[in-house]
Protein backbone atom coordinates (compact mmCIF):
# COMPACT_ATOMS: atom_id res chain seq x y z
CA UNK A 1 0.00 0.00 0.00
CA UNK A 2 1.04 3.66 -0.44
CA UNK A 3 3.99 4.90 1.64
CA UNK A 4 1.83 7.80 2.80
CA UNK A 5 -0.16 5.29 4.85
CA UNK A 6 1.42 3.86 7.97
CA UNK A 7 -0.02 0.74 9.66
CA UNK A 8 0.80 0.17 13.33
CA UNK A 9 -1.39 -2.93 13.68
CA UNK A 10 -3.43 -5.27 11.51
CA UNK A 11 -6.73 -5.83 13.30
CA UNK A 12 -9.05 -8.55 12.04
CA UNK A 13 -12.15 -7.08 10.50
CA UNK A 14 -14.87 -8.93 8.64
CA UNK A 15 -16.86 -6.54 6.51
CA UNK A 16 -16.94 -3.38 8.61
CA UNK A 17 -18.73 -0.08 8.35
CA UNK A 18 -16.59 3.05 8.45
CA UNK A 19 -17.53 6.29 10.19
CA UNK A 20 -15.70 9.47 9.20
CA UNK A 21 -15.47 12.65 11.28
CA UNK A 22 -13.46 15.85 10.73
CA UNK A 23 -12.11 18.08 13.43
CA UNK A 24 -13.39 21.35 12.11
CA UNK A 25 -17.09 21.23 11.31
CA UNK A 26 -19.57 23.45 13.14
CA UNK A 27 -19.88 22.44 16.76
CA UNK A 28 -17.09 19.86 16.15
CA UNK A 29 -19.91 17.38 15.71
CA UNK A 30 -18.07 14.80 13.63
CA UNK A 31 -15.08 14.98 15.97
CA UNK A 32 -17.24 14.44 19.06
CA UNK A 33 -19.28 11.62 17.56
CA UNK A 34 -16.19 9.73 16.40
CA UNK A 35 -14.46 10.36 19.75
CA UNK A 36 -17.49 8.95 21.54
CA UNK A 37 -17.51 5.83 19.36
CA UNK A 38 -13.79 5.19 19.85
CA UNK A 39 -14.04 5.64 23.64
CA UNK A 40 -17.21 3.65 24.19
CA UNK A 41 -16.35 0.82 21.84
CA UNK A 42 -12.71 0.51 22.84
CA UNK A 43 -11.39 1.53 19.44
CA UNK A 44 -7.67 1.06 18.84
CA UNK A 45 -5.66 3.13 16.38
CA UNK A 46 -4.18 0.90 13.70
CA UNK A 47 -3.30 3.13 10.80
CA UNK A 48 -2.58 6.76 9.97
CA UNK A 49 -2.01 8.97 6.96
CA UNK A 50 1.32 10.78 7.02
CA UNK A 51 0.70 14.55 7.14
CA UNK A 52 3.55 15.95 5.03
CA UNK A 53 1.76 16.19 1.68
CA UNK A 54 -1.54 17.47 3.02
CA UNK A 55 -0.86 20.07 5.71
CA UNK A 56 1.37 23.16 5.78
CA UNK A 57 3.54 21.89 8.69
CA UNK A 58 5.03 25.34 9.07
CA UNK A 59 4.69 25.26 12.86
CA UNK A 60 2.01 24.13 15.28
CA UNK A 61 -1.27 25.61 16.45
CA UNK A 62 -1.66 26.32 20.15
CA UNK A 63 -5.18 26.59 21.61
CA UNK A 64 -5.53 27.23 25.34
CA UNK A 65 -1.87 26.30 25.84
CA UNK A 66 -2.34 22.96 24.12
CA UNK A 67 -0.40 22.01 21.02
CA UNK A 68 -2.49 20.85 18.09
CA UNK A 69 -0.92 18.89 15.26
CA UNK A 70 -2.77 17.47 12.26
CA UNK A 71 -3.87 13.90 12.79
CA UNK A 72 -5.50 11.45 10.42
CA UNK A 73 -6.08 8.11 12.16
CA UNK A 74 -8.05 4.96 11.62
CA UNK A 75 -9.40 3.13 14.67
CA UNK A 76 -10.72 -0.42 14.71
CA UNK A 77 -13.51 -1.70 16.92
CA UNK A 78 -13.38 -5.38 15.88
CA UNK A 79 -16.14 -6.55 18.21
CA UNK A 80 -18.63 -4.32 16.46
CA UNK A 81 -16.92 -4.70 13.08
CA UNK A 82 -16.53 -0.94 12.92
CA UNK A 83 -13.77 1.36 11.65
CA UNK A 84 -13.61 5.01 12.67
CA UNK A 85 -11.56 7.57 10.77
CA UNK A 86 -10.87 10.88 12.51
CA UNK A 87 -8.89 13.60 10.84
CA UNK A 88 -8.00 17.22 10.56
CA UNK A 89 -9.32 18.27 7.13
CA UNK A 90 -6.43 18.45 4.65
CA UNK A 91 -5.29 21.87 3.47
CA UNK A 92 -4.51 20.72 -0.09
CA UNK A 93 -4.23 17.59 -2.26
CA UNK A 94 -7.78 16.78 -1.26
CA UNK A 95 -8.50 14.12 -3.84
CA UNK A 96 -5.26 12.28 -3.08
CA UNK A 97 -6.06 12.41 0.63
CA UNK A 98 -9.61 11.10 0.15
CA UNK A 99 -8.26 8.40 -2.15
CA UNK A 100 -5.89 7.23 0.59
CA UNK A 101 -8.79 6.92 3.04
CA UNK A 102 -10.72 4.93 0.46
CA UNK A 103 -7.68 2.75 -0.29
CA UNK A 104 -7.59 1.70 3.38
CA UNK A 105 -11.37 1.35 3.49
CA UNK A 106 -11.58 -0.74 0.35
CA UNK A 107 -8.31 -2.64 0.03
CA UNK A 108 -7.55 -3.39 3.68
CA UNK A 109 -10.86 -3.12 5.55
CA UNK A 110 -13.20 -4.30 2.77
CA UNK A 111 -15.86 -1.96 4.13
CA UNK A 112 -19.49 -2.52 3.28
CA UNK A 113 -20.65 1.05 3.97
CA UNK A 114 -19.24 4.44 4.90
CA UNK A 115 -20.97 7.24 6.79
CA UNK A 116 -19.57 10.74 7.21
CA UNK A 117 -20.84 12.95 10.02
CA UNK A 118 -21.23 16.68 9.51
CA UNK A 119 -23.23 19.55 10.86
CA UNK A 120 -24.98 22.51 9.35
CA UNK A 121 -25.70 25.76 11.08
CA UNK A 122 -29.44 26.23 11.61
CA UNK A 123 -31.40 29.38 12.35
CA UNK A 124 -33.99 27.54 14.45
CA UNK A 125 -34.34 27.26 18.23
CA UNK A 126 -32.79 24.43 20.25
CA UNK A 127 -36.25 23.54 21.56
CA UNK A 128 -37.58 22.71 18.08
CA UNK A 129 -37.63 19.02 17.10
CA UNK A 130 -34.32 18.10 15.44
CA UNK A 131 -34.41 16.88 11.89
CA UNK A 132 -31.55 14.65 10.71
CA UNK A 133 -30.64 14.61 7.05
CA UNK A 134 -28.96 12.02 4.91
CA UNK A 135 -27.38 12.44 1.49
CA UNK A 136 -26.78 9.12 -0.14
CA UNK A 137 -24.38 8.07 -2.88
CA UNK A 138 -26.99 5.86 -4.53
CA UNK A 139 -30.78 5.40 -4.68
CA UNK A 140 -30.23 1.84 -3.38
CA UNK A 141 -28.73 3.04 -0.10
CA UNK A 142 -31.45 5.68 0.13
CA UNK A 143 -33.99 2.89 -0.07
CA UNK A 144 -32.16 0.83 2.54
CA UNK A 145 -32.20 3.72 4.98
CA UNK A 146 -35.95 4.23 4.69
CA UNK A 147 -36.72 2.66 8.07
CA UNK A 148 -34.77 5.20 10.08
CA UNK A 149 -35.47 8.63 11.46
CA UNK A 150 -33.61 10.32 8.64
CA UNK A 151 -34.85 12.92 6.17
CA UNK A 152 -33.72 11.56 2.82
CA UNK A 153 -35.30 13.91 0.30
CA UNK A 154 -32.94 16.87 0.36
CA UNK A 155 -32.48 19.01 -2.78
CA UNK A 156 -29.43 21.22 -2.74
CA UNK A 157 -27.04 23.06 -5.03
CA UNK A 158 -23.99 24.94 -3.82
CA UNK A 159 -24.82 28.65 -4.21
CA UNK A 160 -22.57 30.79 -6.44
CA UNK A 161 -19.32 31.64 -4.71
CA UNK A 162 -19.65 28.74 -2.26
CA UNK A 163 -17.77 25.46 -2.17
CA UNK A 164 -19.04 21.97 -1.38
CA UNK A 165 -18.06 20.43 1.95
CA UNK A 166 -15.25 17.91 2.21
CA UNK A 167 -17.92 15.33 3.07
CA UNK A 168 -19.59 15.93 -0.31
CA UNK A 169 -16.23 15.52 -2.05
CA UNK A 170 -15.70 12.30 -0.07
CA UNK A 171 -19.15 10.97 -0.96
CA UNK A 172 -18.44 11.60 -4.64
CA UNK A 173 -15.06 9.85 -4.44
CA UNK A 174 -16.62 6.85 -2.63
CA UNK A 175 -19.43 6.70 -5.19
CA UNK A 176 -16.86 6.55 -8.01
CA UNK A 177 -15.47 3.41 -6.38
CA UNK A 178 -18.90 1.90 -5.91
CA UNK A 179 -18.74 1.97 -2.10
CA UNK A 180 -22.21 2.49 -0.56
CA UNK A 181 -21.86 5.75 1.36
CA UNK A 182 -23.91 8.49 2.94
CA UNK A 183 -23.35 11.90 4.50
CA UNK A 184 -25.26 12.47 7.74
CA UNK A 185 -26.13 16.13 8.31
CA UNK A 186 -27.33 17.45 11.62
CA UNK A 187 -28.50 21.02 12.09
CA UNK A 188 -26.98 22.82 15.07
CA UNK A 189 -28.68 26.02 16.29
CA UNK A 190 -26.32 28.86 15.45
CA UNK A 191 -26.00 29.94 19.06
CA UNK A 192 -24.72 26.51 20.14
CA UNK A 193 -22.00 26.24 17.50
CA UNK A 194 -19.22 27.61 19.70
CA UNK A 195 -20.39 25.72 22.81
CA UNK A 196 -21.72 22.21 22.68
CA UNK A 197 -24.82 20.46 21.38
CA UNK A 198 -25.18 17.02 22.98
CA UNK A 199 -28.65 16.65 21.51
CA UNK A 200 -27.17 16.81 18.00
CA UNK A 201 -24.59 14.11 18.52
CA UNK A 202 -27.04 12.04 20.52
CA UNK A 203 -29.21 12.01 17.40
CA UNK A 204 -26.36 10.85 15.15
CA UNK A 205 -25.27 8.18 17.59
CA UNK A 206 -28.84 6.99 17.95
CA UNK A 207 -29.02 6.46 14.19
CA UNK A 208 -25.62 4.74 14.02
CA UNK A 209 -26.38 2.52 17.00
CA UNK A 210 -29.64 1.44 15.43
CA UNK A 211 -28.29 0.97 11.91
CA UNK A 212 -25.07 -0.80 12.91
CA UNK A 213 -26.46 -2.64 15.95
CA UNK A 214 -23.84 -1.06 18.20
CA UNK A 215 -25.97 -1.32 21.34
CA UNK A 216 -24.85 2.09 22.61
CA UNK A 217 -26.27 3.24 25.91
CA UNK A 218 -26.96 6.91 25.28
CA UNK A 219 -28.33 7.75 28.74
CA UNK A 220 -25.23 9.84 29.46
CA UNK A 221 -25.96 12.01 26.43
CA UNK A 222 -29.65 12.30 27.34
CA UNK A 223 -28.54 13.65 30.71
CA UNK A 224 -26.06 16.06 29.10
CA UNK A 225 -28.74 17.32 26.72
CA UNK A 226 -31.20 17.72 29.59
CA UNK A 227 -28.60 19.57 31.65
CA UNK A 228 -27.81 21.89 28.77
CA UNK A 229 -31.48 22.70 28.24
CA UNK A 230 -31.75 23.51 31.95
CA UNK A 231 -28.80 25.88 31.67
CA UNK A 232 -30.36 27.64 28.71
CA UNK A 233 -33.62 27.89 30.68
CA UNK A 234 -31.61 29.58 33.44
CA UNK A 235 -30.22 32.14 31.01
CA UNK A 236 -33.73 32.77 29.67
CA UNK A 237 -35.06 33.30 33.17
CA UNK A 238 -32.21 35.65 34.10
CA UNK A 239 -32.12 37.61 30.83
CA UNK A 240 -35.54 38.56 29.43
CA UNK A 241 -33.91 39.85 26.24
CA UNK A 242 -32.36 36.42 25.54
CA UNK A 243 -35.69 34.78 26.34
CA UNK A 244 -37.40 37.10 23.89
CA UNK A 245 -34.88 36.33 21.10
CA UNK A 246 -35.19 32.55 21.58
CA UNK A 247 -38.96 33.03 21.74
CA UNK A 248 -38.86 34.69 18.33
CA UNK A 249 -36.92 31.71 16.92
CA UNK A 250 -39.44 29.33 18.46
CA UNK A 251 -42.27 31.21 16.73
CA UNK A 252 -40.38 31.26 13.42
CA UNK A 253 -39.97 35.05 13.42
CA UNK A 254 -37.07 36.96 11.93
CA UNK A 255 -34.53 38.33 14.36
CA UNK A 256 -33.77 42.04 14.52
CA UNK A 257 -30.39 43.52 13.76
CA UNK A 258 -27.71 42.34 16.18
CA UNK A 259 -30.05 39.94 18.00
CA UNK A 260 -28.47 36.82 16.52
CA UNK A 261 -24.96 37.94 17.48
CA UNK A 262 -26.10 38.84 20.98
CA UNK A 263 -27.78 35.47 21.48
CA UNK A 264 -24.77 33.52 20.20
CA UNK A 265 -22.40 35.48 22.42
CA UNK A 266 -24.47 35.37 25.61
CA UNK A 267 -25.42 31.71 25.35
CA UNK A 268 -21.96 30.67 24.16
CA UNK A 269 -20.22 32.55 27.01
CA UNK A 270 -22.65 31.23 29.62
CA UNK A 271 -22.38 27.60 28.54
CA UNK A 272 -18.61 27.73 28.32
CA UNK A 273 -18.36 29.28 31.80
CA UNK A 274 -20.79 26.75 33.21
CA UNK A 275 -18.81 23.98 31.51
CA UNK A 276 -15.54 25.25 32.99
CA UNK A 277 -17.06 25.47 36.47
CA UNK A 278 -18.44 21.95 36.35
CA UNK A 279 -15.18 20.51 34.94
CA UNK A 280 -13.04 22.32 37.55
CA UNK A 281 -15.41 21.41 40.37
Amino acid at each position, binding site marked *: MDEKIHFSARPELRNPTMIVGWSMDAGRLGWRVTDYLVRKLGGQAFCEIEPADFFPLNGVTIINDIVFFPESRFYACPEKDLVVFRSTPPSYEWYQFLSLILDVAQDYCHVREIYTVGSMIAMGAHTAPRQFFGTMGSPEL*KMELSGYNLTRE*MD*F*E*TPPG*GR*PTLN*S*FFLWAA*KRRGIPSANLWIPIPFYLVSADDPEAYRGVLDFLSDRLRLGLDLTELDEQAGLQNEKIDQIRAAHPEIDSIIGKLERGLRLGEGEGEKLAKEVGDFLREAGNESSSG
Partner: protein
Amino acid sequence: MGIVFCSEPELHQPAMIVGWPGIGNIGVLTVDNLRQQVEAEELGEIEPWDYFYPNKVIIRDGVLHDLEFPTSKFYYKKLADRDLLLFIGEEQPSGRGRMYAEGGKAYEMANQVLDVAEKFGCRRIYTSGAAVALTHHSLRSRVWSVATERRLLSEMKSYTNAFLMSEVEGRQNIGNITGLNGLLIGVAKKRGFEGVCLMGEIPDYLSRVPFPYPKASQSVLEVLAAILGISVDMTAFDDMIDQMEDLIANVLRQFPREIRERVEQRKQEAQPEVITEEDEEWIKEHIDDFFQGGGGDKA
Protein backbone atom coordinates in the same frame (compact mmCIF):
# COMPACT_ATOMS: atom_id res chain seq x y z
CA MET B 1 -5.04 12.30 -14.16
CA GLY B 2 -5.99 11.97 -17.77
CA ILE B 3 -7.22 13.92 -20.71
CA VAL B 4 -10.61 12.97 -22.06
CA PHE B 5 -11.19 13.73 -25.75
CA CYS B 6 -14.63 14.16 -27.23
CA SER B 7 -13.31 14.59 -30.76
CA GLU B 8 -10.20 13.61 -32.75
CA PRO B 9 -10.00 16.10 -35.63
CA GLU B 10 -7.22 16.18 -38.22
CA LEU B 11 -5.49 19.51 -37.70
CA HIS B 12 -2.74 21.04 -39.79
CA GLN B 13 0.03 22.62 -37.70
CA PRO B 14 -2.39 24.46 -35.45
CA ALA B 15 -1.34 27.39 -33.28
CA MET B 16 -2.31 26.91 -29.67
CA ILE B 17 -3.65 29.83 -27.61
CA VAL B 18 -3.90 29.35 -23.88
CA GLY B 19 -5.53 31.31 -21.08
CA TRP B 20 -5.88 30.91 -17.32
CA PRO B 21 -7.36 33.43 -14.91
CA GLY B 22 -4.97 35.93 -13.41
CA ILE B 23 -4.80 39.67 -12.76
CA GLY B 24 -7.77 41.27 -14.54
CA ASN B 25 -8.54 37.85 -16.08
CA ILE B 26 -6.92 39.25 -19.18
CA GLY B 27 -5.70 35.99 -20.72
CA VAL B 28 -8.79 33.92 -20.10
CA LEU B 29 -11.10 36.69 -21.40
CA THR B 30 -9.04 36.99 -24.56
CA VAL B 31 -9.08 33.29 -25.35
CA ASP B 32 -12.74 32.87 -24.47
CA ASN B 33 -13.71 35.78 -26.71
CA LEU B 34 -11.67 34.27 -29.55
CA ARG B 35 -13.30 30.89 -28.92
CA GLN B 36 -16.74 32.43 -29.30
CA GLN B 37 -15.86 34.46 -32.36
CA VAL B 38 -14.38 31.59 -34.34
CA GLU B 39 -17.06 29.22 -32.99
CA ALA B 40 -14.45 26.72 -31.84
CA GLU B 41 -15.64 23.24 -31.01
CA GLU B 42 -14.87 21.34 -27.85
CA LEU B 43 -12.00 18.92 -28.18
CA GLY B 44 -11.63 17.53 -24.68
CA GLU B 45 -10.66 18.32 -21.11
CA ILE B 46 -8.16 17.55 -18.41
CA GLU B 47 -9.70 15.49 -15.61
CA PRO B 48 -9.99 17.98 -12.78
CA TRP B 49 -10.25 16.18 -9.45
CA ASP B 50 -6.57 15.82 -8.70
CA TYR B 51 -6.00 19.51 -9.40
CA PHE B 52 -8.97 21.28 -7.88
CA TYR B 53 -11.36 21.41 -4.98
CA PRO B 54 -14.90 21.09 -6.37
CA ASN B 55 -16.98 24.22 -6.81
CA LYS B 56 -20.49 22.82 -6.76
CA VAL B 57 -22.40 19.84 -5.40
CA ILE B 58 -25.82 18.95 -6.74
CA ILE B 59 -28.08 16.81 -4.59
CA ARG B 60 -31.40 15.66 -6.01
CA ASP B 61 -33.99 14.03 -3.77
CA GLY B 62 -31.36 13.06 -1.21
CA VAL B 63 -28.97 11.41 -3.67
CA LEU B 64 -25.66 12.88 -4.81
CA HIS B 65 -26.34 13.79 -8.42
CA ASP B 66 -23.10 15.50 -9.41
CA LEU B 67 -20.00 17.24 -8.17
CA GLU B 68 -18.67 19.96 -10.43
CA PHE B 69 -15.05 21.08 -10.64
CA PRO B 70 -13.37 24.02 -12.38
CA THR B 71 -12.90 22.99 -16.00
CA SER B 72 -9.70 22.89 -18.09
CA LYS B 73 -10.96 22.50 -21.64
CA PHE B 74 -9.48 22.28 -25.11
CA TYR B 75 -11.21 23.58 -28.24
CA TYR B 76 -10.31 23.55 -31.91
CA LYS B 77 -11.19 25.35 -35.10
CA LYS B 78 -10.20 24.59 -38.66
CA LEU B 79 -9.67 27.89 -40.44
CA ALA B 80 -8.95 28.55 -44.10
CA ASP B 81 -5.30 29.50 -43.53
CA ARG B 82 -4.47 28.11 -40.14
CA ASP B 83 -5.98 25.72 -37.65
CA LEU B 84 -6.38 26.70 -34.03
CA LEU B 85 -6.18 24.86 -30.74
CA LEU B 86 -7.49 26.76 -27.74
CA PHE B 87 -7.19 25.96 -24.06
CA ILE B 88 -9.17 27.67 -21.31
CA GLY B 89 -8.57 26.91 -17.65
CA GLU B 90 -11.29 28.15 -15.30
CA GLU B 91 -8.85 28.13 -12.39
CA GLN B 92 -5.16 27.69 -11.86
CA PRO B 93 -4.48 24.53 -9.82
CA SER B 94 -4.28 25.67 -6.23
CA GLY B 95 -1.06 24.26 -4.88
CA ARG B 96 -0.38 24.77 -1.20
CA GLY B 97 -3.04 27.43 -0.84
CA ARG B 98 -1.31 29.97 -3.04
CA MET B 99 -3.18 32.24 -5.44
CA TYR B 100 -1.29 31.15 -8.54
CA ALA B 101 -0.16 27.70 -9.47
CA GLU B 102 3.40 26.70 -8.81
CA GLY B 103 5.40 23.57 -8.21
CA GLY B 104 4.53 20.02 -9.19
CA LYS B 105 0.83 20.44 -9.96
CA ALA B 106 1.39 23.46 -12.18
CA TYR B 107 4.21 21.71 -14.00
CA GLU B 108 2.07 18.63 -14.50
CA MET B 109 -0.82 20.62 -15.92
CA ALA B 110 1.50 22.61 -18.20
CA ASN B 111 2.85 19.34 -19.55
CA GLN B 112 -0.63 17.97 -20.12
CA VAL B 113 -1.57 21.04 -22.16
CA LEU B 114 1.60 20.63 -24.20
CA ASP B 115 0.92 16.90 -24.65
CA VAL B 116 -2.27 17.88 -26.46
CA ALA B 117 -0.41 20.48 -28.51
CA GLU B 118 2.10 17.81 -29.54
CA LYS B 119 -0.59 15.25 -30.30
CA PHE B 120 -2.21 17.59 -32.84
CA GLY B 121 1.01 18.76 -34.46
CA CYS B 122 1.15 22.22 -32.92
CA ARG B 123 4.56 23.87 -32.77
CA ARG B 124 3.74 27.36 -31.52
CA ILE B 125 2.07 28.27 -28.25
CA TYR B 126 0.65 31.65 -27.24
CA THR B 127 -0.28 32.51 -23.69
CA SER B 128 -1.51 35.82 -22.43
CA GLY B 129 -1.73 37.61 -19.15
CA ALA B 130 -1.47 40.95 -17.42
CA ALA B 131 1.27 43.55 -17.58
CA VAL B 132 0.89 45.75 -14.51
CA ALA B 133 1.81 49.17 -15.82
CA LEU B 134 2.03 52.82 -14.84
CA THR B 135 -0.80 53.75 -17.11
CA HIS B 136 -4.31 55.17 -16.85
CA HIS B 137 -7.49 53.21 -17.51
CA SER B 138 -8.63 55.74 -20.12
CA LEU B 139 -5.56 54.97 -22.24
CA ARG B 140 -5.34 52.12 -24.71
CA SER B 141 -3.59 49.09 -23.19
CA ARG B 142 -0.38 48.26 -24.93
CA VAL B 143 0.70 44.65 -25.37
CA TRP B 144 4.05 43.51 -24.04
CA SER B 145 5.55 40.37 -25.47
CA VAL B 146 8.24 37.88 -24.62
CA ALA B 147 9.24 34.79 -26.56
CA THR B 148 11.14 31.55 -26.21
CA GLU B 149 13.51 32.45 -29.04
CA ARG B 150 15.18 35.67 -30.13
CA ARG B 151 14.05 35.25 -33.75
CA LEU B 152 10.40 35.50 -32.68
CA LEU B 153 10.93 38.92 -31.11
CA SER B 154 11.25 40.84 -34.37
CA GLU B 155 8.00 39.30 -35.56
CA MET B 156 6.25 40.30 -32.34
CA LYS B 157 7.55 43.87 -32.59
CA SER B 158 6.09 44.22 -36.04
CA TYR B 159 2.47 44.16 -34.84
CA THR B 160 0.66 47.38 -34.06
CA ASN B 161 0.56 48.26 -30.37
CA ALA B 162 2.93 45.40 -29.47
CA PHE B 163 6.16 46.05 -27.61
CA LEU B 164 8.90 43.89 -26.26
CA MET B 165 8.91 43.79 -22.49
CA SER B 166 12.43 45.25 -22.43
CA GLU B 167 11.30 48.24 -24.50
CA VAL B 168 8.76 49.37 -21.95
CA GLU B 169 9.87 52.52 -20.18
CA GLY B 170 11.21 52.14 -16.70
CA ARG B 171 11.60 48.37 -16.93
CA GLN B 172 14.79 46.50 -16.37
CA ASN B 173 15.85 43.69 -18.67
CA ILE B 174 14.75 41.19 -16.10
CA GLY B 175 11.18 40.28 -15.16
CA ASN B 176 8.97 37.33 -14.40
CA ILE B 177 5.51 36.10 -15.36
CA THR B 178 3.72 34.55 -12.42
CA GLY B 179 1.51 31.48 -12.59
CA LEU B 180 0.65 29.13 -15.41
CA ASN B 181 0.41 31.78 -18.12
CA GLY B 182 4.14 32.23 -17.56
CA LEU B 183 5.14 28.71 -16.56
CA LEU B 184 3.61 27.19 -19.68
CA ILE B 185 5.94 29.21 -21.90
CA GLY B 186 8.90 28.00 -19.87
CA VAL B 187 7.85 24.37 -20.16
CA ALA B 188 7.13 24.92 -23.87
CA LYS B 189 10.70 26.12 -24.31
CA LYS B 190 12.02 23.10 -22.42
CA ARG B 191 10.08 20.81 -24.75
CA GLY B 192 11.18 22.58 -27.90
CA PHE B 193 7.98 24.47 -28.78
CA GLU B 194 8.01 28.05 -30.00
CA GLY B 195 6.30 30.15 -27.35
CA VAL B 196 5.08 33.70 -27.02
CA CYS B 197 3.42 35.39 -24.07
CA LEU B 198 1.34 38.48 -24.81
CA MET B 199 0.56 40.68 -21.84
CA GLY B 200 -2.05 43.42 -21.88
CA GLU B 201 -1.43 46.48 -19.75
CA ILE B 202 -3.55 46.98 -16.65
CA PRO B 203 -3.06 50.10 -14.50
CA ASP B 204 -1.16 49.31 -11.31
CA TYR B 205 -3.97 50.79 -9.18
CA LEU B 206 -6.47 48.26 -10.61
CA SER B 207 -4.23 45.22 -10.43
CA ARG B 208 -5.60 44.14 -7.05
CA VAL B 209 -9.23 44.87 -7.79
CA PRO B 210 -11.19 41.63 -8.36
CA PHE B 211 -12.68 42.76 -11.69
CA PRO B 212 -11.87 41.76 -15.24
CA TYR B 213 -10.04 44.35 -17.30
CA PRO B 214 -11.42 43.91 -20.83
CA LYS B 215 -9.47 46.83 -22.28
CA ALA B 216 -6.26 44.82 -21.96
CA SER B 217 -7.92 41.68 -23.33
CA GLN B 218 -9.12 43.67 -26.32
CA SER B 219 -5.57 44.83 -27.07
CA VAL B 220 -4.21 41.30 -26.76
CA LEU B 221 -6.94 39.99 -29.06
CA GLU B 222 -6.09 42.66 -31.65
CA VAL B 223 -2.48 41.51 -31.67
CA LEU B 224 -3.48 37.84 -31.78
CA ALA B 225 -5.86 38.49 -34.66
CA ALA B 226 -3.04 40.16 -36.57
CA ILE B 227 -0.71 37.23 -35.86
CA LEU B 228 -3.32 34.69 -36.95
CA GLY B 229 -4.48 36.74 -39.94
CA ILE B 230 -8.12 36.71 -38.90
CA SER B 231 -10.60 39.52 -38.43
CA VAL B 232 -12.36 39.87 -35.11
CA ASP B 233 -15.36 41.81 -33.92
CA MET B 234 -14.68 43.97 -30.87
CA THR B 235 -18.31 44.78 -30.04
CA ALA B 236 -18.45 42.45 -27.03
CA PHE B 237 -15.28 43.93 -25.57
CA ASP B 238 -16.47 47.48 -26.30
CA ASP B 239 -19.65 46.75 -24.33
CA MET B 240 -17.70 45.23 -21.45
CA ILE B 241 -15.35 48.21 -21.36
CA ASP B 242 -18.35 50.56 -21.15
CA GLN B 243 -19.79 48.51 -18.29
CA MET B 244 -16.49 48.53 -16.44
CA GLU B 245 -16.23 52.34 -16.57
CA ASP B 246 -18.73 52.77 -13.74
CA LEU B 247 -17.11 50.07 -11.62
CA ILE B 248 -13.68 51.60 -12.06
CA ALA B 249 -15.06 55.05 -11.23
CA ASN B 250 -16.54 53.56 -8.05
CA VAL B 251 -13.21 52.03 -7.09
CA LEU B 252 -11.44 55.33 -7.66
CA ARG B 253 -13.99 57.21 -5.57
CA GLN B 254 -13.03 55.04 -2.61
CA PHE B 255 -9.31 55.73 -2.96
CA PRO B 256 -7.88 58.46 -0.73
CA ARG B 257 -7.90 61.87 -2.42
CA GLU B 258 -4.11 62.01 -2.94
CA ILE B 259 -4.10 58.71 -4.81
CA ARG B 260 -7.02 59.85 -6.98
CA GLU B 261 -5.20 63.06 -7.85
CA ARG B 262 -2.04 61.23 -8.82
CA VAL B 263 -4.03 58.77 -10.92
CA GLU B 264 -5.88 61.59 -12.68
CA GLN B 265 -2.59 63.33 -13.34
CA ARG B 266 -1.60 60.36 -15.49
CA LYS B 267 -4.72 60.86 -17.59
CA GLN B 268 -4.05 64.56 -18.14
CA GLU B 269 -0.46 63.93 -19.10
CA ALA B 270 -1.58 60.94 -21.18
CA GLN B 271 2.01 59.92 -21.56
CA PRO B 272 3.16 57.11 -19.31
CA GLU B 273 6.77 58.09 -19.92
CA VAL B 274 6.53 61.18 -17.71
CA ILE B 275 5.50 59.18 -14.63
CA THR B 276 8.46 59.19 -12.33
CA GLU B 277 9.80 56.30 -10.30
CA GLU B 278 8.85 58.21 -7.17
CA ASP B 279 5.25 58.38 -8.41
CA GLU B 280 5.27 54.65 -9.00
CA GLU B 281 6.62 53.89 -5.53
CA TRP B 282 4.25 56.35 -3.86
CA ILE B 283 1.15 54.88 -5.50
CA LYS B 284 2.26 51.29 -4.95
CA GLU B 285 2.84 51.92 -1.27
CA HIS B 286 -0.45 53.72 -0.75
CA ILE B 287 -2.55 51.30 -2.82
CA ASP B 288 -1.09 48.42 -0.78
CA ASP B 289 -2.01 50.25 2.42
CA PHE B 290 -5.51 50.86 1.08
CA PHE B 291 -6.16 47.20 0.27
CA GLN B 292 -4.48 45.87 3.41
CA GLY B 293 -6.68 48.17 5.44
CA GLY B 294 -9.76 46.45 4.07
CA GLY B 295 -10.65 49.24 1.68
CA GLY B 296 -10.68 46.77 -1.16
CA ASP B 297 -13.72 45.02 0.28
CA LYS B 298 -15.78 48.11 -0.36
CA ALA B 299 -15.07 48.11 -4.06
